């Protein structure tokens, strides 16, 4: 009894936090999504499915997000995996901590400032000027989907590296020795031992990056020149520009549903992959 009380008391701060900061606002959003826009903007209570019927008006934004978010996640993974592998398997243990810190260093500066730096790197007097100087015709980088993708991969790479690194680092190296002793060439050992055992880290990293990307609005606005329109940008406009809170709420609810489906799919996949719950709980 005493123990149970302690448990509840210790859980209370987090519980209250989630109830007040997450569940309650979500309830508001849900209620608002069935309402109407007030004539001068804002919200008037109502019960209508009009906002949901109007969702196709933001179809392009959903499409852009659902294309660039998975693409950005995949690109981050392709770049992050070899790096994480190097850090966990090949790097001199003396340097490992230093190298890991270097991966995290970009987080010390606000993403806003780092994205702003990319505007100059990708702008006409940055990389394109160098490319032109080298003799390869005029190129336009800033304000293109390419620039947005670059910003995304740059910004989210550490979030992919860390979980993959952890899963590789915790991998029982004796398994690799066994695999080698049994005559498997390195590639086969990698494909049959290392890769499957690192999948939980890969899945966690992908989930982290994907979910955050689905809500991204800053990078498309800054590096896409306002021409690459994500759901996040649609939401910012709906709440801050046209002040159509009801429609904005409906778009937000739809986004949350898409995320829930994705996360459920992820949980289901993880369970099927052999119930490695402790790995799942890594992050």
């Amino acid at each position, binding site marked *: 009894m005493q123990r149970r009380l302690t448990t509840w008391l210790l859980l209370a701060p987090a519980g209250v936090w989630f109830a007040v900061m997450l569940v309650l606002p979500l309830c508001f959003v849900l209620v608002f999504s069935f309402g109407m826009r007030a004539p001068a903007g804002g919200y008037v209570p109502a019960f209508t499915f009009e906002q949901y019927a109007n969702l196709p008006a933001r179809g392009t934004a959903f499409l852009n997000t659902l294309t660039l978010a998975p693409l950005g996640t995949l690109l981050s993974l392709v770049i992050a995996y070899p790096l994480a592998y190097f850090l966990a398997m090949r790097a001199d243990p003396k340097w490992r901590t230093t190298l890991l810190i270097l991966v995290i260093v970009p987080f010390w500066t606000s993403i806003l400032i780092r994205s702003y730096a990319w505007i100059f790197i990708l702008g006409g007097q940055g990389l394109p000027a160098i490319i032109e100087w080298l003799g390869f015709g005029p190129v336009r980088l800033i304000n293109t989907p390419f620039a947005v993708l670059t910003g995304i991969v740059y910004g989210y790479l550490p979030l992919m590296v860390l979980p993959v690194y952890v899963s590789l680092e915790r991998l029982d190296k004796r398994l690799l020795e066994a695999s080698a002793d049994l005559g498997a060439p390195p590639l086969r050992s990698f494909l049959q031992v290392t890769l499957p055992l690192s999948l939980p880290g890969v899945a966690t990293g992908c989930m982290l990056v994907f979910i955050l990307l689905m809500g991204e609005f800053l990078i498309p606005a800054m590096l896409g020149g306002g*021409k690459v329109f994500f759901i996040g940008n649609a939401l910012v406009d709906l709440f801050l520009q046209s002040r159509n809170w009801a429609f904005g709420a409906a778009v937000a609810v739809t986004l949350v549903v898409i995320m829930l489906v994705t996360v459920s799919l992820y949980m289901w996949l993880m369970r099927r992959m052999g119930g490695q719950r402790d790995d799942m709980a890594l992050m």
Partner: protein
Amino acid sequence: MTDKIDHISRQKFMEELRRYQKGSVTRRHFLGVTGLGAASAVLGAAMPGLIPRPALAQGIGDRAILATWPNYHDVTNFDAFAAETGATVQVNVFGSNEEMLAKLQAGGSGWDVFVPTNYTITTYVEQDLIEPLDMSLLPNYDPASFDQRFAGPGTVDGKVYAVSKNWGTTGFAVNTNNTGGTTPATWKEFFERTQTDFSGRTMVHDYQLTTIGAALKAFGYSFNSVDPAELAKAEELLLATKPHLFAISSDYQPSMRSGDAWMTIAWTGDAKQMNRDMPEIVYVLGREGGELWSDFYAVPKGAPHREAGYALINFLLKPEVNVKEALFHGYPVADARVNALLPAEVLADPILYPAADLLSALEFGAAATLTDPNRAELMARFKSA
């Protein structure tokens, strides 16, 4: 995303301040570009060491919170205000009137003074978001010296809710190094050139009022049109132009200055600031017309440091202070007392004070233009296309 500078040394702060004054306004640009209402630059309140002496005698408190537009104040005036009254000025920078309205509608903005544009004031009054000004607290405001054309919209139903800050126009800025000798003179040409030799080099505002307004003017329609047929024509033009745009953003100075963009929809002061540093960038008022606007100082209902807010407005309206503001930001003032102090070349500057025939073609934005849901949806379709 507050940008607080806590526990900063006095020397460090003065360095930062000087950097601001030199015009390296990157921080404000950062904040402006995100379009985030939450983005705010704290210019003074966190530096208690800088306050010469808390002027408790005046009893106006230690701070005034001002919500305003980017590049719109001379920060040395804020220092002078702090030195005189003991209240430091905290500045929140905004990108659009809609954002300000959204913040006030949501409640708890914490502002003492903000800077609404003419067409929003009736909405603020209807929504009961601003208070009728207590004119006894604003002795520096002399209604007789203000041009009623610009100061008038501050008065609703005979009550003064807002006092005139600045006025200006919305035209476009062109880098003449890239025009091949013929500078576009109309909104029609603005869009035509964008689709041809300016392809990939033009910017339009991330603001439905001005961007849709410009497209409407290209057809000779009213800047304020909410007529479905006319809006459909404007949408067609905007969608056809979109592949040729460099960006849709109201933060156009960096791209124009770096040479990435050659032409942009622009407000008076931005055009003046660019033209001051790069004379090849000129300002054009489309022959068909366009927007004439005026900004105001207003006090939101429930301002937490109400007295300091009034004191700040009163201070900034003092002609000797206001003239410094005008020289800094390059927007014209409607106050004859200030104009009397301005150098002759400023008053003769066609960017600030356009020729009468160009000026008479301009329209004030209307309240309905800002809140029209169809225009908002048109803008969303344009941006997501």
